[in-house]
């Protein structure tokens, strides 16, 4: 029975020789993740149902990243509840203010997730770890509670779409544009219930930061997971981070894919998703005159070191436009420190940006950059739904870090080439 990458990982974790699309299985989990919003609901369910131990204290990650440093009293209560739970069960991977980073940047950085793993997280962007060649998917709090208690989860084995990448990205075009282009092509439910499996010679030119960004937004096409073939770049990234054996799965040559989409990376332009869906994409030459009030550079999608480096290249020696607020959020403490070391923070602050400690904050309209009525924001984040970053009559435009930084300088959505 031929299988896709995803199907092979699921079969191995279900203790089966093979699985096929549509089959319902129970799989063993290598990591169960929650954050400060989803963990309290999971903990309530865990306690209400009388569970008195966790399956493995080293395979649970609790990351206080969404509304931290605590935005208000209620948020503080939620973190307190999660902290108490973490201490009670001696959870190894509890991350709080001071060492916390945005979960999907933090876990790969620390080597807590690796190729071949089967991972669930009570956060929809848990699909990010597919970039490492893992099966990783978002679930709700009840699944998280069950996962913490039993170390298992049920899945319907997904069918898959193959995304064959060729060529090499041009300057100021990044992983963000690959995934926005793909979502624009297939729509926000184009991969509903399915795997997106990325492969092809184009992978050679895609950094881990690009791949993590692409897998991160697989959910924005409705996908169950978005997984990359493991190559030397993946292995080099895991080297020195992952302190255990990991397993590399490749699809069978005759694996069944419902559809194959070929993307020539060299043909892609910087791409912007207009309100209020990630599928409303336009290439940068099609955007026209869109004045903006705010720029956010950060998030689990684009808060990594390369994103910071790109933004710094564009903003170096320049000023953020009058009447534009530019908020830069390095996704983890390690990235933050590296930004200091490389001089990026000086560049950002000299340009007139606000730089924040790691937090999901504005991406989901929590805090640290909420929009007023009628305001527009160019953000390197992942969703531009109605009211996502603030007022119901505000607008979010999704873009890569180069476009976001360039737009901060000009005060309107701009091609980075215009300011360089």
């Amino acid at each position, binding site marked *: 029975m031929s299988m896709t990458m995803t199907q092979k990982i699921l079969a191995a974790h279900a203790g089966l020789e093979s699985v096929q699309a549509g089959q*319902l299985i129970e799989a063993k989990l290598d990591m169960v993740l929650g954050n400060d*919003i*989803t963990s*309290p*609901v999971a903990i*309530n*369910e865990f306690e*209400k*149902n*009388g569970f008195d131990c966790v399956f493995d204290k080293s395979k649970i990650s609790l990351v206080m990243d*969404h*509304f931290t440093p605590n*935005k*208000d009293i*209620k*948020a503080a209560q*939620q973190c307190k509840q999660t902290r108490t739970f973490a201490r009670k069960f001696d959870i190894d991977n509890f991350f709080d203010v001071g060492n916390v980073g945005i979960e999907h940047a933090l876990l790969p950085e620390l080597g807590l997730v690796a190729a071949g793993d089967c991972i669930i*997280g*009570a*956060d*929809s962007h*848990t699909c990010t770890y597919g970039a490492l060649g893992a099966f990783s998917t*978002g*679930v*709700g*709090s*009840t*699944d998280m*509670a*069950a996962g913490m*208690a*039993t170390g298992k989860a*049920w899945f*319907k084995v997904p069918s898959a779409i193959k995304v064959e990448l060729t060529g090499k990205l041009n300057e100021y075009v990044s992983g963000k544009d690959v995934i926005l282009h793909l979502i624009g092509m297939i729509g*926000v*439910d184009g991969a*509903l*219930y399915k795997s997106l499996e990325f492969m092809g010679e184009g992978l050679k030119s895609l950094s881990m930061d690009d791949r993590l960004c692409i897998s991160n937004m697989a*959910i924005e096409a*409705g996908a*169950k997971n978005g997984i990359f073939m493991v190559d030397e770049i993946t292995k080099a990234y895991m080297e020195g981070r992952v302190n255990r054996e990991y397993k590399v799965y490749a699809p069978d040559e005759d694996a069944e894919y419902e559809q194959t989409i070929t993307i020539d990376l060299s043909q892609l332009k910087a791409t912007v998703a207009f309100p209020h*869906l990630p599928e409303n994409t336009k290439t940068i030459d099609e955007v026209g005159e869109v004045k903006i009030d705010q720029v956010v550079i950060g998030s689990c999608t684009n808060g990594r070191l390369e994103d910071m480096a790109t933004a710094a290249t564009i903003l170096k020696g320049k000023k953020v436009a009058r009447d534009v607020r530019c908020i830069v959020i390095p996704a983890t403490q390690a990235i933050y420190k590296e930004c200091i070391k490389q001089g990026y923070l000086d560049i950002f602050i000299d340009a007139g940006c606000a730089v924040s400690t790691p937090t999901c904050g504005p991406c*989901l*309209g*929590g805090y640290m950059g*909420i929009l007023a009525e009628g305001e527009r924001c160019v953000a390197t984040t992942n*969703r531009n*739904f*109605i*009211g*996502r970053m603030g007022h*119901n009559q505000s607008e979010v435009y999704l873009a890569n870090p180069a476009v976001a930084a360039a737009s901060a300088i000009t005060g309107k959505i701009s091609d980075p080439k215009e300011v360089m």
Partner: protein
Amino acid sequence: MKAQGIVYKYGDNIDTDIIIPARYLNTADMKELAAHCMEPVDEDFPKNVKPGDIMVGGFNFGCGSSREHAPAAIKECGVSVVIAKSFARIFYRNAINIGLAIMECPEAAEAIEAGEEVAVDFETGVIKNLTKNEEYKAMPFPEFIGEIIKKGGLLNSIK
């Protein structure tokens, strides 16, 4: 199990930020959350909805975040069932896990209008439009999922 109520109808891609905006997620108190359910598109929904009423959506209902607060807020509002053309996968999972009834039925979701009275039979999957005197048939759940629903949610089924 049966349900009957008045329909609240919304469009395609009703995302979790519409169902419950993230700014309210600083609490896990479902009563508090329910007071803001559907706020970005229908501010009066929590005030108007009556126990047993039915929500109808288009394609990709519940897309976006994994927040279980979304199906939980709908359930807390008293909605007896959500009928849609299709569901985003995490919402689908969450609804089953917490015991919010959902039915995938493109035909019903297309034909039923806001304000109509609809009756649903979960055993047979038959959806009756009492206002228009029409009948539609929803996709049945796989047996495994049917068992979770019967046992009252995921955690009851694994205990």
